[in-house]
């Protein structure tokens, strides 16, 4: 089983409780079997033949939001997501994945996104089709923005142009990383291979991702998929914070920023978004109580479709963190957070939209 390749992680997690208080799902559900310790013990028990690897163990391994809070909290740097994703691959190989996961796979293979949208937003398509398909700087819009938040693409482009950058873009549709997270390794690899070939054909030196999930998986292609990209991968905030910005309009509102799991915990990028925000003259910035790598996790779009009740609780908790700051606006790095927080009635903007509003 692939699970056993992640033995170092579950061996060290199986009897360790030290991250329980930060485990997002275990905190939401208060369910003992959702703690990293319990999942590690289940993995070990499977190895020893104490537990059969059945649909119940598989289900348990899917009930994780992959926020990596456990890993970032761990003094030993052990990572439960390593054995959880391995177990998901085994579940897929043995046909043990829950029905909701199979449906999501079909959606991802069909549409390339979790929303089951086969058409991208018209505004987005119009904007993207005007960009060259080759260039030094290549924008990757990801799997949320073209369907749910096209304004972020527009804002991204406006700011870059104001800085004198004329990027290229490709009309990528993948779902590869989501498939990877669900344990569909072969399907994920095929999807990502196609994307990688398109990126390579664009001849870019720097890939700028507008969303955060892509910042992670494109940087880790080699580890995750055995693929290589020669171009450097940066999140939009990292790239823009390295540019000379034009004179920006002053803003006086109090703002805060939500560090999403992919950018903060997976990539360790926490300064660049703040640098972008603080570049706005007059900006009053207040971090939430839980920020950076310790920010309370919000659900990925994928997890929202997997376990919507837990995802709702995660969002509610983060919204409470936001309200405690008394900030006027919540700025997000991940597009899905901007979408979800707006759905909750919060004034949320992406980092790109915030900077664009100061142009």
């Amino acid at each position, binding site marked *: 089983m692939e699970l056993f390749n992640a033995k170092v992680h579950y061996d*060290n997690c*199986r*009897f*360790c*409780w*030290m*991250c*329980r*208080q*930060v485990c997002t799902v275990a*905190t939401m559900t*208060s*369910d*003992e*079997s959702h*703690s990293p*310790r*319990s999942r590690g*013990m*289940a993995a*070990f*028990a499977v190895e*020893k*033949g*104490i*537990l059969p690897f059945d649909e*119940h*163990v598989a*289900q*348990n391994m899917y009930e994780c939001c992959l926020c990596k809070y456990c890993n970032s909290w*761990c*003094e*030993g740097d*052990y990572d439960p997501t390593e054995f959880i994703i391995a177990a998901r691959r085994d579940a897929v190989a043995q046909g043990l994945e829950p029905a909701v996961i199979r449906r999501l796979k079909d959606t991802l293979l069909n549409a390339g996104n979790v929303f089951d949208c086969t058409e991208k937003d018209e505004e987005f398509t119009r904007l993207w089709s005007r960009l060259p398909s080759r260039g030094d700087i290549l924008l990757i819009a990801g799997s949320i923005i073209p369907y749910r938040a096209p304004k972020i693409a527009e804002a991204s482009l406006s700011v870059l142009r104001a800085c004198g950058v004329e990027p290229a873009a490709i009309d990528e549709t993948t779902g590869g990383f989501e498939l990877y997270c669900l344990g569909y390794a072969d399907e994920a690899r095929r999807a990502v291979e196609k994307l990688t070939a398109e990126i390579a054909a664009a001849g870019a030196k720097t890939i700028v991702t507008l969303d955060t999930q892509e910042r992670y998986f494109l940087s880790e292609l080699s580890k995750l998929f055995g693929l290589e990209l020669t171009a450097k991968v940066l999140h939009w905030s990292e790239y823009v914070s390295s540019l000379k910005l034009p004179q920006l309009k002053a803003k006086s509102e109090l703002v805060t920023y939500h560090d999403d799991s992919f950018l903060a915990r997976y990539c360790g990028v926490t300064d660049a978004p703040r640098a972008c925000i603080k570049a706005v003259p007059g900006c009053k910035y207040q971090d939430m*109580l839980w920020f950076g790598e310790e920010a309370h996790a919000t659900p990925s779009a994928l997890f929202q479709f997997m376990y919507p009740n837990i995802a709702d609780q995660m969002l509610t908790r983060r919204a409470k963190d936001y309200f*405690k700051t008394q900030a006027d606006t919540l700025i997000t790095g991940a597009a899905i957070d901007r979408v979800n927080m707006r759905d909750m009635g919060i004034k949320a903007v992406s980092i790109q939209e915030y900077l664009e509003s100061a142009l």
Partner: protein
Amino acid sequence: MPAHAVNKINMAELNHNYRGRMIISELEDAVGIQNVRLLDVDKLPHSVDYYWIPRMWVDRGKKPVYPDCVVYPETTEQVSKVMRIASHYRIPVTPWGGGSGSQGGALPVEGGIVVDLKRMNKVLELNTKANTITAQAGIIQQHLEWEINDKGYSTMHLPASIGCATLGGYLAHRGTGVLSTKYGKIEDMIVSMEVVLPNGDIINTLPVPRNAAGPDLNQFFVGAEGTLGIITTATVKVFEHPECRMFNAFLFKNMHDSLEAGRLIMNARLQPTVIRMYDEPETIHQIERVFGTKLEKGSFLVFGFDGEKEIVDYQMKKAVEICEATAIQNLGSKFGEQWWKNKYKFYFPPYCLDLPQAYGTMDTVATYDKIENIYWKMKTTCEQFPGTRFIAHFSHWYDWGCMMYDRFIVDPAFVPEDPDEAIRLYQQIWTECIRVCLDNGGVINEHHGVGLKLGYMMQEQYGPAFQVLSALKKALDPYNIMNPGKMGF
């Protein structure tokens, strides 16, 4: 052997037994279908706690003792309903908080129902006039802390298990935290509590902990490890954040000198927040390893004070003077701060003790005139076992004595692969060391509790006095359904 046998329904045959299925339906009616678990993937994590024996058992590929089902009540009334069902059918009930105890206290060794309290995790009231907080007992202590920290308060109960253990769990086994020397153990922090008795009745202790209205009911249930009932709600003290907290560390030539320095600080009534002193082997094994700093051979001692700065400055000055009289090196405040920052790091892998070693924490407490002798007697006894070493630190200090957090570690090469043989060796070490401790004025435990691990030593420790505890147990739980196999019951 249990004091009296449980006459229980054989729920283990649940899947083949319609009566068992009917009882499960009653439990589902009591707590909701979504709060009853019957799958092995849910039972497994409730069958292993921090105790070495079940961990080793699983490590050797052996199936641990599963509960027959796990329930997650959300209210006291639901706990009461579960207890009435269990009492009626005489089914064993094991309360489960974080399951992070090291004594096997939460293990469902006779099967039955595990009552996992973690869904009873609400903060009910922060009373800033009385400086108390009332919360459901299943709240994880760190969550309770975080809830009140940004309001300017702390429970000051900060054990290494803070992230995983629950408020009820600490009360059930008389837990203690790193700041206990000033703020007390959990039994000093309890104000009042609500308890569900084995028959399902819900009772409350008196609203204040100091009175002359008879024996203290709080202290019947604190430390009873769920053998007398289930703590469902507790009111404990809270403290405003101190203006400052300062630390200083010293290195002494040996443990005798550092122990004496700690005693003098306590005798001077300087009220340190914490004193922690490590013997020479643990100074090397833990301090150097975790800090990544090479120290001279010796015994490491760190102390801290908190409160108003002016007072803390004075306390620090006096404590430094005491230590400087005999220490070989003043490591300064930076080293002390580093210790404070890393205080939980010792318990993460790879820094913590773990299999394939055999290990155990035999923490004890004794008066100052006896504690050093107990250390040497236990060390000598322990190290007679091949491949076994003994390390200790002294964590919780009182006016009259201090607690010794002593551990034995058996090198993997000397731990039998056969689990039965491993248990035999393990029990021999425990029995001989604890007996030496008792014979020289110590007690079987200071803050980890008794549980399954030390239950068999309770009669030996208490002698005829154990009949008082047994009578109390029999009166409240005549069928021994509450956490059977623990505390010597």
